[in-house]
């Protein structure tokens, strides 16, 4: 038998994902819709002897043509014509959830309604007359509890039965009142007359409704002038009667229909004015307690990600160190064979450089999954919105930016929680300006070398502050130029608080980790190997190294290599910043990872391993002024942290263009600001 295609739709926070997981188990695949950053989730299952392909469409509140999610969902239902559309509703919030349902009804989609979270609804005292409601809405209704695994069979039964149904036209329609119905029938007649093809494909009533709503997509599809003129007349006529846009009146009437249906079929046996969620909110979004609670939770997230993540990270570092030593041991001691170097310093170090992020990412997404599934995430956005909005961002942007203080890589990945594309891109662009943990290695080398103990703290603070300030300014600028556009309405639902299930949290966490490894991982590894190549080749003649001790040999080798040469080449360009080729070489190496700056600098100054940082510091002190030192700090702060950041930006934006934009932008910004500071500083000091 033919494969059944089932589309899952529903409001955000309706538990659609857990229902999807319930239906498809581990047989799922996450990707992107072409050209956009919206996730595409597909999976399959076998039931009743049939193979069923399930598409999890993005969560939406409505099916207008204004957001990418809505357009994708609508297009899928209209063009791909799935066999069944399952609308997942939060049963304890039926009225609002049914709004989408009525629009699906009007699209004549073969509908099954999943009353999800029915356990919570029951606990709240809601009683449904499902038979009657089913008759009114002309769709099978199945109560489910997605995150507890209940209702799977019943749902799949309903799906199969609905797929078998004959496609009869609907009996019950949402009635919009005589004035609107009159205009509708006029437009319908015109459509049947002039646009037969469209009418056959989409249904005349639905088209008429969309035209009255002035739906951009449908308006573009209608060619016939008489129809468009008629629509225009109807719209202005209705506008004058109702003193409102027809689409608003239509929305109103839909809700009226829903209210009516619900009043007949739903009873609230327990009259509870304020439930547990209200009480929690009273504390959590309290004027006094709200902010401290938020900061506390943010601290917890940060701690979980970085402090707790430290242990597995060290474990992994040890593992890779061991791996490097083992592979290295396959060659005789002191060998400089290229394969040995490639494997040990190139590939293993490269893979290690990727995997080392995994604990942070998994833990971060554990924290995010907890925040989202409990419902707190929306409250966090609520508390922070005032500040974020002033910069042109959304309240939710705070969290990824905060994570950026630990490491940009998981921070950029965390921007997934931002729904608005422009907000998301802006946030991704400025996250690197949050001084990350890796830069600390540079700060702890440079600052004690050049500043007296009294100044060390303040200088560090200054650097962090400059980073934040620049981020704010850049965000504002970006929002005014590249990512400009009217701020989309904030209007955000605050979902009821819920207990997260281990299963959903773990699945969530795992999917993210896997995505990171597959996508960012490959890019990072690739670039690491390239950088290794640049640092290792060309190799100097062993004769040239004769008579030099180990450190001096390393120094010579580095200078001879591609990176060293590039460092020399770049010197004239970075001279105005107060930098010489040695710093240049270290900076180039540091594009792999900021920590590399220190080790590269040690090699260049022939101080070998970084155990001798004091020796290195003395040498630096002798070579540069405090102003130059400060410029090094500035440049490290502003320029791209590492290639992993670039790779992650590429992954999250689904385009190399933005990644390059970020890289070039940060580099130019770093150069410009450091230039100004150095030149002005030289005059003053």
């Amino acid at each position, binding site marked *: 038998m033919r494969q059944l295609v089932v589309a899952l739709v529903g409001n955000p926070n309706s538990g659609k994902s857990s229902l999807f997981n319930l239906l498809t188990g581990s047989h799922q695949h996450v990707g992107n819709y072409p050209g956009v950053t919206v996730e595409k989730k597909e999976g399959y299952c076998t039931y009743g002897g049939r193979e069923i392909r399930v598409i999890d469409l993005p969560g939406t509140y409505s099916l207008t043509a204004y957001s990418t999610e809505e357009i994708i969902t609508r297009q899928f239902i209209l063009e791909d014509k799935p066999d069944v559309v399952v609308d997942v509703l939060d049963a304890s919030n039926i009225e609002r959830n049914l709004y989408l349902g009525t629009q699906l009804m009007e699209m004549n989609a073969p509908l099954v309604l999943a009353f999800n979270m029915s356990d919570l609804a029951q606990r709240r005292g809601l009683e449904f007359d499902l038979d009657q409601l089913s008759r009114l809405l002309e769709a099978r209704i199945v109560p489910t509890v997605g995150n507890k695994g209940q209702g799977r069979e019943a749902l799949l039964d309903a799906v199969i039965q609905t797929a078998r149904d004959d496609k009869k036209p609907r009996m019950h329609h949402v009635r919009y009142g005589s004035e609107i119905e009159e205009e509708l029938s006029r437009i319908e007649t015109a459509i049947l007359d002039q646009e037969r093809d469209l009418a056959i494909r989409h249904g005349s009533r639905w088209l008429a409704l969309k035209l009255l709503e002035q739906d951009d997509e449908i308006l573009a599809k209608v060619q016939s002038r008489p129809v468009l003129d008629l629509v225009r007349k109807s719209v202005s006529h209705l506008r004058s009667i109702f003193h409102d846009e027809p689409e608003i009146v239509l929305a109103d009437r839909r809700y009226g229909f829903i209210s009516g249906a619900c009043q007949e079929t739903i009873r609230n046996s327990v009259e509870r004015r304020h439930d547990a969620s209200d009480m929690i909110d009273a504390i959590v979004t309290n004027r006094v307690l709200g902010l401290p609670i938020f900061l506390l939770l943010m601290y917890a997230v940060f701690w979980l990600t970085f402090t707790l993540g430290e242990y597995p990270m060290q474990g992994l570092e040890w593992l890779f160190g061991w791996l490097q030593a083992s592979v290295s041991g396959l060659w005789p001691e002191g060998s400089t064979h290229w394969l040995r170097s490639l494997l040990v310093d190139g590939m293993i170090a490269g893979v290690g450089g990727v995997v080392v992020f995994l604990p942070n990412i998994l833990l971060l997404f554990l924290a995010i999954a907890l925040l989202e599934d409990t419902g707190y995430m929306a409250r966090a956005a609520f508390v922070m919105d005032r500040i974020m909005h002033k910069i042109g961002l959304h309240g939710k942007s705070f969290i990824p930016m905060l994570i950026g203080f630990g490491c940009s890589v998981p921070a950029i990945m965390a921007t997934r929680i931002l729904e608005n594309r422009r907000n998301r891109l802006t946030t991704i662009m400025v996250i690197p300006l949050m001084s990350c943990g890796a830069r600390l290695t540079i700060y702890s080398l440079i600052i004690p070398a050049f500043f007296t103990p009294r100044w060390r703290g303040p200088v560090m603070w200054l650097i962090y502050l400059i980073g934040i300030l620049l981020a704010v300014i850049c965000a504002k600028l970006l929002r005014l130029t590249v990512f400009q556009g009217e701020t989309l*309405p*904030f209007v955000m639902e605050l979902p009821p608080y819920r207990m997260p299930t281990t299963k959903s949290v773990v699945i969530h966490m795992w999917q993210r980790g896997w995505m990171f490894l597959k996508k960012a991982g490959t890019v990072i590894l690739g670039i690491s190997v390239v950088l290794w190549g640049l640092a290792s080749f060309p190799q100097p003649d062993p004769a040239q190294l004769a008579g030099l001790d180990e450190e001096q040999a390393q120094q010579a080798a580095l200078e001879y290599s591609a990176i060293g040469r590039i460092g020399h080449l770049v010197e004239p360009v970075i001279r105005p910043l107060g930098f010489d080729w040695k710093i240049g070489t270290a900076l180039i190496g540091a594009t792999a990872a900021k920590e590399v700056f220190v080790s590269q600098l040690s090699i260049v100054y022939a101080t070998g391993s970084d155990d001798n940082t004091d020796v290195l510091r003395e040498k630096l002190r002798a070579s540069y002024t405090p102003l130059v030192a400060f410029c090094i700090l500035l440049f490290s702060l502003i320029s791209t942290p590492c290639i992993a950041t670039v790779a992650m930006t590429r992954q999250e934006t689904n385009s190399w263009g933005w990644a390059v934009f970020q890289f070039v932008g940060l580099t130019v910004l770093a150069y410009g600001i450091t230039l100004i500071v150095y030149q002005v500083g030289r005059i003053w000091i």
Partner: protein
Amino acid sequence: MSAKSANALTASLEDYLEVILWSVAANGAARVKDIARQLQVQAASVTGALQVLAEKRFVHYKPYEAVTLTPEGFQEATRVVRCHHIIREFLTQVLGVEAEAAEEGACRLEHDIPGEIVARLAAFMEYVQALPEPERGSLAAFIERSMGRTASADPSELSFGRSTVADMKPGHEGVIVRIGSHAELARRLADMGLGRGVLIEVEGVAPMGDPIRIKIRGYRLALRKSEARSIVVIEK
């Protein structure tokens, strides 16, 4: 209707007093048929009213005799007339109401408006009279402009007294009257279920003053104050 003292008169009785005052002033006494004609009522109604007024000792009335006012009646009658005058002047001079509408408004208001309020209106009128001409004129001009801005005399069109969700305090409820905002926001609000006649409850405000939390159709929504300002409500 607020509770009135035993001696307080109903509207029509005050009208009688007024008429009698003018008649007595003009002719020395008032006759039943004159009163009936002026108030456009039946003679029988007049005699009934006169009996009540006589009981209250406002008038001297013996059947088939001309009517005169007692000192108390004179005081009450002048009070009513004065009220009428103050209100009418307020309506015409300050609010710029047309003479006929002002007359009718004054006739209605003079009977129910508490004396305290009339006294304050009088004081206010003194203030207005004392204003130099340009300021007095600008007051009237302002009213004209405000009225001119609205297409009709519909009070819900003006900004004073209009409440939006942004004005509501936590814990208060209201019913949505109108959503007046640009298309994008209006659509989003409509999609989320905010429409005419829907009950909305403001639950709280974020720690930094913005956004606000509301409850609608049984679920919770967060809105920026700037967005809330476009939702017009009548508060409970």
